């Protein structure tokens, strides 16, 4: 916990000292600082989670949950004064702003240095920074499914038959969203479902029932429903489903967290993620990430590394953009997960207490 505190303190000090950005060189310098900070902060989430688990006995679980939720959503009041950017949204969180800024800077670096090559920028570019303008729900689900299946196959061995997937509904639903967030949430839900079905099948004799995904598009939002027949969640567990610190298996989770890649203190162990992992569905080869996606390591962890925070984290990400994540359990049968996401641009982000967070 104190490591995290130090990280934030250092970041604050560094950023505080930066001058207002008035030129491109300033921006370059700024970007460098920001990306360094981002790399250092990659370990924040796992470390925070560890800290929370270790401190279970010292603080009441409800306060702990509140703390985690607030922290994950909190806003920096960085107002980007970048002259060339097309700023899309209102205030967004530190990481999203930061990553966004870096991505946009990259976009404009080339034409800035080579003014004649402006025409190379595709006006219909699919990405505006981090936001993928044309997230197609079905493609995202399929991509996440493939990734989750691969991981599951590795973990459970090839003798285990995985359930199939069936996607129906408004298959053409397309909307702008932050791809990595969406992939993380859907990935987590699919992983949970696969896990439940596989582990239940050990006791039943029929082939596994497919996991059903329904995509439903409405003017203001898109709903993705994931239904599995994995046996459901027992009633005793339900109240603690969304908590970071409670739960019967928190000890196991604690020890597992230390095995998440990029947890180690030394930065040398960081390696760039597999370029196909974060952009598996985008064929636009021009854009290349020179920094790490924050969710990359979590998304690609092996399935037997149970961290116990997939659901609460997913909910934070879902609700951040004025969305919803809800789970309904049919105990003895399966679980239905409902992810509702607002199409970006309509609503402000939901931060728990904006006033207090932005107050100077």
């Amino acid at each position, binding site marked *: 916990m104190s490591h995290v505190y130090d990280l934030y303190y250092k970041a604050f000090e560094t950023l505080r000292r930066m001058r207002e950005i008035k030129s491109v060189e300033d921006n370059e310098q700024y970007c460098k600082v920001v990306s360094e900070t981002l790399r250092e902060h990659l370990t924040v989430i796992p470390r925070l989670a560890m800290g929370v688990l270790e401190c279970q006995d010292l603080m009441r679980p409800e306060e702990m949950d509140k703390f985690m939720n607030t922290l994950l959503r909190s806003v920096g009041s960085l107002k980007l004064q970048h002259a060339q950017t097309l700023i899309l949204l209102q205030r967004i969180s530190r990481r999203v702003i930061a990553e966004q800024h870096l991505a946009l800077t990259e976009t404009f670096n080339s034409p800035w240095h080579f003014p004649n090559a402006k025409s190379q920028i595709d006006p219909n570019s699919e990405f505006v920074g981090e936001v993928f303008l044309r997230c197609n729900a079905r493609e995202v689900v399929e991509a996440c499914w493939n990734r989750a299946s691969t991981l599951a196959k590795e973990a459970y061995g090839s003798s285990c038959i995985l359930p199939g997937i069936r996607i129906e509904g*408004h298959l053409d639903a397309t909307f702008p969203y932050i791809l990595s967030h969406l992939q993380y949430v859907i990935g987590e839900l699919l992983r949970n479902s696969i896990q439940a079905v596989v582990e239940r099948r050990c006791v039943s004799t029929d082939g596994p029932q497919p996991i059903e995904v329904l995509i439903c598009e409405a003017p203001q939002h898109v*709903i993705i429903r994931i239904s599995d027949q994995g046996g459901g969640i027992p009633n005793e567990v339900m109240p603690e489903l969304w908590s970071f610190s409670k739960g019967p298996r928190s000890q196991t989770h604690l020890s597992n967290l230390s095995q998440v890649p990029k947890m180690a203190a030394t930065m040398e162990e960081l390696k760039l993620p597999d370029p196909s992992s974060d952009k598996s569905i985008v064929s636009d080869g021009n854009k290349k990430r020179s920094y790490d996606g924050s969710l990359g390591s979590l998304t690609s962890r092996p399935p037997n590394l149970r961290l116990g925070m997939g659901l609460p984290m997913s909910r934070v990400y879902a609700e951040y953009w004025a969305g919803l994540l809800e789970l309904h359990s*049919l105990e003895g049968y399966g679980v239905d997960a409902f992810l509702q996401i607002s199409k970006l641009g309509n609503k402000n982000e939901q931060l728990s207490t904006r006033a207090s967070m932005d107050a100077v």
Partner: protein
Amino acid sequence: MTRHGRPPLSASTLFTSANFTLSLLPIRLAHRIQALRNLPFIVVSNPHISRIYNIYIHSLSTLLPYQERQINTLEDEIQFTEVMADLVQTHAETIPILARGFLECRKYISPADVTKFLDEHLRARVGTRLIAEQHIALHLSSQPHCSGNNQYVQDGSSTSIGVIDTALRPAETVRQCESFVSEICELKYGVRPTVIINGQPNTRLAHVPTHLEYILRELLKNAFRATVESGKEREPIEVTIAASPDPSPSPPAPIQLDPVTAPSQGDAITANAPPGVTIRIRDHGGGISPENLPNIWAYSFTTFGDEELLDLSNGNVDALNAISGANGGSSSLAGLGYGLPLGRAYAEHFGGSIVVQSLWGWGTDVYLKLRGLGKM
């Protein structure tokens, strides 16, 4: 409710049940009277509401003399039970009458206040009626002298304990409600959607059949209406029945199943209650719009046409009769806005729940969870 044992009960147990019932009812009636008194004066002056008020006063005054003495003889008990049966009958139409009254008074009291009052009142009513009906049923099934066609006669193979059926098969209830609702639907719209039951259809549950019937009927009414009105009558409504697996055996604790403690009826069920059932009803009827969603649990909120509701002076009683619990009768498919909140009151009475998940633009999923009622 099951603590008195399986009928036929011995005389002394019957007396215990009677005295137990007697101890509870007057207090409950008194609370209801008090709640009615706390409504705005102009609301209670409404003829329908004041009629209900007077019925309650009359009931209380009928029961009070019995309180002064214990019931120790068979004839006392028979007389008491008859009085109770009479009361149950008199109060049977409370809901439609109250509904009518509040509808007429909507200028004088806010919907939020109506919901608050009705929520408390109707939930209390569920419990009170249950206690009364249970005693009556136990009494009737313990009749030492029984005529051949007494429907309450219990033989060794009966699964009923008064109004509770310990071997209730929800799938069967679903089919019964389906046929009931299908008929009304066909009458009104000319088509009837189909219902598919999957999951574990042979599940059995110990519960009160009339409650389950009410809830399922209302939920199916909603699903049918949505399905037909969005033109998707070819799409089946999917009902999934899931039985929670038996909990790991723990030392049997005495099971107190009286839904008596008025403040927290659900808490009276201990954690050792037998496994329950989750029923999911999925329709493809377009869902509930975000504007309507916050209001679905309010009493008198309905998306049904307003013209029908206001047509009360014509004695459009059929629509109102639709929601009174016991009698089916010919009824409209929807319209009074009581189905969901009252259904939830029934479900939550024994620690269950109803959760509605709308997929606006596609359909609605409803999750009904019910607990089993005690082991013998």
